[in-house]
């Protein structure tokens, strides 16, 4: 079934169509949630809240962009909102360098999705959010500053520190591999 047809049925309150949409997009959306969350349970919470928003506020989708993009945006905003509500500090100290992904302990230097995800998840909340928004989602610093209620300079510096931290982690993995 076409995604548009499913979506129209979802707007009508069809539970089957809603389940179909969830089945189609939950994998990709959960991946997004995992990048922003610290733990898997937090990612599940974001996914759940995000999909409830999608089904209850479906009328707000103006069909100008893609449905998947809109749902992704909802997931990102839900994650930011969750962190804001929990009132976590954006500038957390950097995670310990020894918190490396388990899969990197071997001689295999080839980096998999899980390794990279673990590196991103290990970043402090502020760095992680800005890195995800800028590098993966493609938002500008101006947009990020508005979304996170921070200055553009703050966004830039957090991205720079996030990159620096990721580079250090990658170097360490390479050294272990060699």
């Amino acid at each position, binding site marked *: 079934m076409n995604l548009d047809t499913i979506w129209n049925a979802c707007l009508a309150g069809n*539970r089957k169509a*809603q*389940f179909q949409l*969830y089945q189609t997009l*939950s*994998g*990709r959306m*959960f*991946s997004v949630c*995992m*990048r922003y969350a610290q733990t898997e349970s937090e*990612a*599940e919470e974001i*996914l*759940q809240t995000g*999909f*409830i928003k999608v*089904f*209850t506020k479906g009328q707000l989708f103006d069909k100008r962009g893609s449905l998947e993009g809109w749902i992704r945006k909802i997931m990102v905003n839900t994650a930011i909102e969750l962190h804001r509500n929990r009132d976590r500090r954006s500038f957390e100290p950097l995670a310990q360098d020894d918190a490396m992904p388990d899969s990197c302990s071997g001689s295999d230097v080839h*980096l*998999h*999705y899980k390794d*990279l*995800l673990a590196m*991103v998840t290990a970043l402090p909340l502020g760095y992680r959010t800005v*890195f995800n928004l800028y*590098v*993966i989602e493609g938002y500008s610093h101006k947009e990020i500053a508005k979304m996170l209620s921070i200055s553009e300079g703050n966004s830039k510096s957090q991205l720079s520190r996030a*990159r620096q931290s*990721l*580079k250090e982690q*990658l170097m360490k993995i390479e050294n272990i591999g060699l």
Partner: protein
Amino acid sequence: MKDKELDKLFKGQLEQHSIFPKKDIWHKIESQLDQPRVAPARRFSWIRYAAIAIGCLGLIVLAYNMMQSTSVREIPTIAQKRAPEAPTNTSQDPSESAQQMPLVAHGYLEPPEQEVTKIQISKQHVSRPKQRRPISKHLPQPKEPRLELVELKPAGVSLPLASGVDIDDKAPKEYAITVPPVAPLIDSPETEESMLASARKPAEGIVPGILNKISDALNPSDHTTIQFSKDEEGFLRLDIVNGLVKNRHKKRR
């Protein structure tokens, strides 16, 4: 590694990846969607605040209007001029008194004390003298009640009436009440002084005076600490002011 390379590596790996969540999440979503949606109270909170604000504004406007109406309300003003009672005043030229009244009305001159206590009436129009009589009935009448008509003007302002203008009698007239000054509750200032609460000044005799001087000489900087005075019964009185107050600084040392 350059920034661009790093970004490319992470973007390529993380962007389009899928991780399937646990199955029970859908059940949670479904159960939450099945719950009857309660209209959030916060949605209409601004309406409530707006209603309260409008109500408060309305009350303020109402109160202001009421205050305005009470202050602007027309006060019937009556001014009566009474002919001089005393025979000594009769010798005075009536034209002089007639000249004095406008000055009194203008506030340039203070009326004599006798007249201040009376209600003074001055008429603007002579056309209806009968209506004014009942007011003056209650007042002590002179032998020859003579009403002098003085044009009532606000203090310092004079409006010349055009000769051709005819003022309608039925039109509401303005009056002015001259209220006699409020008599003080306490006549003599001595009584007032005695009523005020004041610290009784200790009587000083010769001996306490000498002792006070000695005390001052001994403690020139802190002369108020010990004071000698004479009691009402003639006994010597010793006042130690702040004598028992502890000094923190001394203790610390």
